[in-house]
């Protein structure tokens, strides 16, 4: 395999695996910037993957390839709706954020597999007929070296995620909404004295996390597993949390960190072709993402600067 083709494969598989993580990590960033810890990302991704897959299967014949992007949107909306459970529990009923998130994680797979059985009479959906394959960008792909490596047979979802990530950064750091959302995650009492609606902002943070997490789940189903089953989402939501922490609760950090995690996963596929790595046992590549998650959490969680009021409940005084 030539170096250019090897690089192309590494870049495109990295992007494919990074995209779902990126969306979910961006979602987590919004939720936690607003002060609500969201360990329910895993469950949200499951709901997004399920809804996206069902929409894809139902409308692929009518809409063709357009169904793909609409399915991502549907996954997002479903995730956003599902995340409302977390918002109500943590914001209105002041329940523990971790417990509420765990409820989401336990509820989602059970619910979605049950619905899959109802709809398709089996434990998994049929394979998707249209999927997010690879795209060659016209024009850019003609560039020397860069063209073949980055823009030929590459992952559209990866670039889409990076674009969304940059928009998220602008939203969080350059707009009124972003400033207010961050203030609510840092010091809700102070924000409230300035007339900021803490409850509404925390709701928007959680709903955005559901939206983005759901989109991540749908992308997972449409680009990697190509159906929905109990094994579509296996820890990506938790990995996204590690990505979010590794990225220091910053959308740009989340982009970089998820590319790193994506690379780790892509090595499982292309590792055989890289001379230095080819003699390693496949098992190492398989467990690499999880191992890296663990190492990242151990090394960075203590030092990272989480939003000051992350995980706290806000009680309005009378």
């Amino acid at each position, binding site marked *: 395999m030539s170096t250019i083709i090897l690089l192309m494969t590494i870049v495109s598989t990295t992007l494919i695996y990074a995209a779902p993580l990126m969306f979910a990590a961006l979602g987590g960033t919004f939720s936690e910037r607003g002060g609500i810890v969201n360990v329910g990302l895993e469950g949200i991704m499951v709901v997004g993957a399920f809804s996206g897959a069902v929409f894809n299967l139902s409308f692929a014949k009518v809409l063709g390839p357009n169904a793909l992007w609409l399915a991502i949107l549907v996954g997002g909306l479903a995730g956003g709706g599902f995340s409302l459970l977390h918002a109500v529990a943590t914001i209105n009923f002041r329940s523990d954020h971790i417990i509420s998130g765990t409820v989401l994680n336990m509820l989602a797979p059970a619910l979605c597999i049950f619905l899959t059985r109802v709809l398709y009479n089996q434990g998994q959906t049929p394979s998707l007929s249209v999927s997010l394959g690879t795209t060659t960008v016209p024009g850019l792909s003609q560039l020397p070296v860069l063209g073949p490596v980055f823009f030929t047979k590459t992952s559209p979802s990866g670039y889409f995620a990076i674009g969304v990530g940059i928009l998220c950064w602008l939203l969080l750091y350059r*707009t009124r909404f972003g400033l207010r959302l*961050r203030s609510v995650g*840092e*010091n809700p009492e*102070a*924000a409230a*004295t*300035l007339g*900021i609606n803490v409850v509404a902002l925390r709701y928007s943070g959680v709903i955005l996390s559901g939206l983005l997490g759901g989109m991540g789940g749908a992308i997972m189903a449409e680009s990697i597993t190509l159906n929905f089953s109990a094994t579509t989402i296996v820890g990506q939501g938790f990995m996204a949390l590690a990505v979010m922490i590794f990225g220091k609760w910053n959308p740009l950090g989340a982009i970089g960190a998820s590319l790193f995690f994506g690379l780790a996963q892509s090595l499982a596929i292309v590792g055989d072709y890289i001379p230095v790595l080819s003699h390693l046992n496949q098992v190492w590549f398989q467990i690499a993402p999880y191992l890296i998650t663990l190492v990242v959490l151990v090394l960075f969680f203590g030092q990272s*600067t989480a939003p000051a009021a992350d995980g706290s409940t806000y009680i309005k005084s009378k």
Partner: protein
Amino acid sequence: MAQVLVSMQHITKRFGDFYANQDVNLSVHAGEVLALLGENGAGKSTLMSILSGLRQPTSGTLMIKGQPVSFRSPRDATLAGIGMVHQHFMLVQAFTGLENVLLGDELVHHGVLAEKRAQTRIQALADTYHLNVNLNQRVAEMSVGMQQRLEILKTLYRNADIVILDEPTAVLTPQEITSLMEIIHQLTQEGKAVIFISHKLSEIKAIADQCVVIRHGQVIQTLAVNTTDESTLADLMVGRHVSRSLAKPAPQLGTVSLALRHLSVKDHRGIERVHQLDLDVSEGEIVGVAGIDGNGQSELLSALTGMLPASADQFTLNGQDMRHRSPRQFTQQGQAYIPEDRQTVGLILPFTLAENLMGQGFMAAQNYRFGLLNYPLIRAKARQLIQKFDIRTVSEQVPAASLSGGNQQKLIIARELSRHPNLLIAANPTRGLDVGAIEYVHQSILDQRNQGKAVLLVSFELDEILQLADRIVVMHDGEIIGAANPAKITRQELGLLMAGSPVERPEAQSYVTVSERSPRSK
């Protein structure tokens, strides 16, 4: 007479059966400083939370510039021209000064924050009122004084005509207090009114025009400050005659109790916060450690109680090497500790008074019977201590959380002193207490010293240190940068030392260390 900006008429605020404010009347004029004087829990804060829109009164009328108003939220109060600077600043630590000012009233251009334009405008405002604030610095990196100026700037940006300052001097150095007084003067010059909440009489005398004394939620008296004196104000506030000076016999020094040579302490993140510190505390003296919060005092205290490891050439308590010892070993060596934070470190709030008073005794065999805790005995002992230390409570079986701040502090003092310690370490022992409770705590500490015990007092309250200590050392940036004689040094000189600059007058210093004095044998 200047315009009446605020008029509160018959304001009552009731929580259940408890009246936090009852039939309060007060008015504030433009260009005036109104002091609100009262003990903790007298209802000052509730009254001001009504004025700043955080709470709604149960009954009564609030008039702003002659118009009756009804605030539903802090936002309504802000729009009516009321700016509140809370005692615990309402700032976002991770944000810059600029972001903190803007938050809630952002300048936006095409959906994007117009930070440049905002910066110019806010800087101009700061310059007008001589508020030295670095708008591009994060709040977490600002001094407390600058954070306070930032809070004042926030109210001015929102066009406040009435600025409420809640206990503004509690956390400031004497120099910062002077500059705050100048800022207040500047505000009133511009026709704004300032409401100054305090229980420090000297400051009220210095800055206020009118003083409203509040006790048990009611206005006791409103008086012009220039017609009264501090002791009258103190008596009015407490409701009885208070003695504001302690009788203090000359110290009778014994042997050295605590000796530190080159003590260094790293905090939990591995950053060295105390560098090569030398200190001796002898029996029969109170050594006061003065300094601004965050100069290594917490780490020093943690090391002295075994909560943080320390490296030292010498670290002895009554001659015993105390390096790498656990908190329990310190306790067994006869050390008592009144921690800074009585609620999270000093007490286990959900536990009963009896359980808290048992404290370190949970290991003592005498508290057990048949291998189980002997509750009848523990409760009996607690009842004795409650009586001896005059802890106001309905029973020894209620949780410590149900006590007032002053009584919680008495509870800690009772627990610690009942162990008959030979070294007492007290950290900000009167923080947040009212005059009566302060009197009690100070007397208890002084009694220990008079009984020949060694006392180390770490405090941010200059008056407390000057009043109690026989010897003062000043901590700055993890080092002891000077020693002072409390009888000779002035508040201003001590303030300069705390800020890190040396004192010029030699007579104010006392570099006499214990080894140079001839210790009196026991």
